[in-house]
Each structure stands twice: as structure tokens, then as C-alpha cells.
């Protein structure tokens, strides 16, 4: 008697224990996150002829520094830079001003150091060199694994040439 009662109770419970997996939405996000992960820190050597005083390269660097993306940017993109990427999608820029003040910044942030007069303050004083600025822009984790800064080359947000344009802009007299 007792046994069969326990058994039927157990059965009852297992029959009643509904499976809610088809009722409650629990979509899978693990694959989305996996595909989106950041690659290990990239160490980059500045290519030859990277830093230039070519005004066109500096204009491109400036545009990428000050703007979030093509859709958001006011005015024409400078020669050699598009507002859409190779797939015709809204091209993302550096949005460096979100965190850094620099000459002419509008609404510049203060999460990162002020890059105003960078060449005079940091390079001529011997604290930094061109290779450092290139690497820091490409992948800032090199000297600070816990950096709050964006990763720009390892993520393929930019290519080498674009990193050079941005670096040239930071180092240029303004």
C-alpha cells in the first residue's frame, strides 16, 4: 500500500513537473558573445612612412578622431575617407573625443588624458615617441591590460593606414 502510494505520488509529481523551456523565452546568447570576443593583445610595429605631415592624411585622422561614425558625422568626409565601409554600411570612426580632450574638441571627455599639444608636451619632452602613440591607438592594452580605452587595430575597426592617419593627426601641430 505505502509503496504504491509513494510511487504514484512520485509519478504524479514527475507528470506534473511541467517543462517551462518552451514557455519561457530563454534565447541563446553564448554564441553571440563568443563570436564577439576580443583577440589577445596585438603588438604592432609602426609601418614605414607612417607618420606624415601630409595635410590630407591629417584631415582624415582628425575626422576619425572627432567623429563617432559616418552617419553621425557632419559635413563631407575628407579625401580618401568614406562614410560607409566596404559593405556599404555606416563606417565607424574612432570617437576619441568621447574620452580625450584635444585642440578644437567639441564636448571632449576626460576619461583618458588630455591630448592637447601632444607633440610638445609628450614627445619633445622625451616621455613618448611615435611608435608609442601608434601602438597605443592600435591596441592600448600593451602597457595596461586593464585599460578602459578602445582597441582599434586588433578589432579591425581600422586598418594600419588609418591608425597612421590618426597618429599623424595627434602628433601634428594644430
Amino acid at each position, binding site marked *: 500500500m505505502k509503496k504504491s502510494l509513494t510511487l504514484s505520488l512520485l509519478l504524479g509529481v514527475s507528470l506534473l*513537473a*511541467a517543462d*517551462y523551456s518552451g*514557455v*519561457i*523565452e*530563454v*534565447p*541563446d*546568447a*553564448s554564441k*553571440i*558573445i563568443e*563570436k*564577439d*570576443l*576580443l583577440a589577445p593583445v596585438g603588438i604592432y610595429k609602426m609601418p614605414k612612412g607612417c607618420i606624415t605631415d601630409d595635410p590630407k592624411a591629417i584631415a582624415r585622422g582628425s575626422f576619425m578622431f572627432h567623429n563617432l561614425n559616418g552617419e553621425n558625422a557632419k559635413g563631407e568626409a575628407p579625401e580618401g575617407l568614406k562614410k560607409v565601409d566596404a559593405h556599404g554600411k555606416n563606417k*565607424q570612426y574612432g*570617437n576619441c*573625443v*568621447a*574620452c580625450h580632450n584635444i585642440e578644437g574638441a567639441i*564636448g*571632449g*571627455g*576626460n*576619461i583618458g588624458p588630455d591630448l592637447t599639444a601632444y607633440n610638445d608636451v609628450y614627445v619633445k619632452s622625451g616621455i613618448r615617441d611615435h611608435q608609442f602613440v601608434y601602438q597605443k591607438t592600435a591596441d592600448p592594452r600593451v602597457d595596461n591590460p586593464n585599460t*578602459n*580605452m*578602445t*582597441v*582599434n587595430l*586588433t*578589432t*579591425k*575597426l581600422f586598418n594600419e593606414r588609418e591608425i597612421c592617419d590618426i597618429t599623424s593627426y595627434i602628433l601634428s601641430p594644430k
Partner: protein
Amino acid sequence: MKKGMQIVLCVTLLSSLTFASEQFAMSDADRAMYEELLENNPADMMLAEGSEFLDELGGESALAKYLGVSEDALPSYIAGFPRYIEKFKMVVSIDQMLQGMMHDSGQKPYALKSSEMFNMSSYVKALANDEEINIDVNANKHMKEAYALGKVVFETKRGARGLSCLSCHNPSVIGGILRTQPLPDISAKGNASAATWPAYRMTKSALATLQKRFQGCMNNALLAVIPLGSKEMTALEVYFTDEAKGATIALPGLKR
């Protein structure tokens, strides 16, 4: 709805905005809108609609019964979500719990991203107004796992800019300025995000839940947006809610 609490919040918010230096304070037009909306938060109407949806399921008493608590204990129980619910065999947020309840009442559950669900789940969370957040991330192994996963999701750098939530929400950058926006403190000591969401977002003219707000930051910072209700999203909510543990719930919030 709970005017006293809203006023306290608004004073804190306004003073923190003023504190963030004049250059970055709200424009006069924004401030005027903010003050007007505080008097009459548009989300109140949305929660009122949510209350009607809950009534169709039998109202608060039916909800209390469904959750196996007394009606008196309901607000404090709600203040502990996300929770592991044995019947569901998973850690769920309020909206997911409501999907289970709708199903068991013979109704087709609202989709997590539907406005009906936003309104109803926000209303239900607001039943816990004036309660302190009492989530217990050590209640059982499921909650422990959810908290640990939430912390990982929070700290994982990803996306086109290689950022994590932590990049912008860590003690060293709180109050710093990111393109004119002061970075908020998500903890109980600061903004206590989990106690102030769902909120009406003035910039979106819409009611947003905490998970929806997470998606906003993912989108802005170019992290691939993960879906509402995913294990990782719920885990992130567990993590944020624990950060705000002890803070008094005051809903609906009013945010930029």
C-alpha cells in the same frame, strides 16, 4: 506614484547633474522637460496599463498565490528578483516569471520584448516600491552561478571597440565625462540602477526595463546586442541587482 521617493531621487539626480560641471549640465530645455516629466512621469500610464494586464490574470492576489507567498509578503518577495524558481528550474527575471504564470493561466505569454510585457513586468516590479532590494546571490547554486556569469559578462571585453561594461562602469571612471555624459555609478551607494529601472527614457520617449537599458549600452559601445531573457542577460541583471542591494526601489524611474 510614490511622490516622496521620486522627489528624493530627483534631487539626487539634479544635484549630481549640476555637480558634473556647468559645461555638461542639462540644457535649459532638457531641464524644463525633466522637471515637467517628474511631476507627471509618462511611465505611470504605462504601468497603469500593466496593472490591467495583471488583473486579467487575477491581480496581485493571484500573483501572490502563484508565487506561493502571502499577499503581504509579495512586495518583499518581488524585491528579490531575479530568483531561482524551482518549478521553472531556472533563474528568472520578473518578465519570465510572468510568462510562466500566463501560460499556467491558459494564456499565451506576451513576448519579452513586447510593450505589453514591458508594461506588466514594470508594474509588477513597482509593487515592491519602498522595499529594499533583497536579492540573495548565495541562496542556492543556481543564483551563485548566475551571479558569477553576470560578473563575467560585465567584465568581458568584446565588440568592434574591444570594450566591456566595466570599461565605463568602474570606480575609477564614475563621474568622468564621456562625450558630455557623466558616467553613472550603478551601485547602491550611487545611482542604484536596479532600484530605478524600469524607467521612462526621455531621449527615447519610451519605457525601458533594466535589460533593455543594457542593450542600449551594448548598441552604443558596439558590443553585439544579446537578447532579452538570455541566460547572460538575466545573469547581468542579477549582477546589477546585487550591486544595488539594500537600495530602496522607486519606480518608475525617469532617465535621460
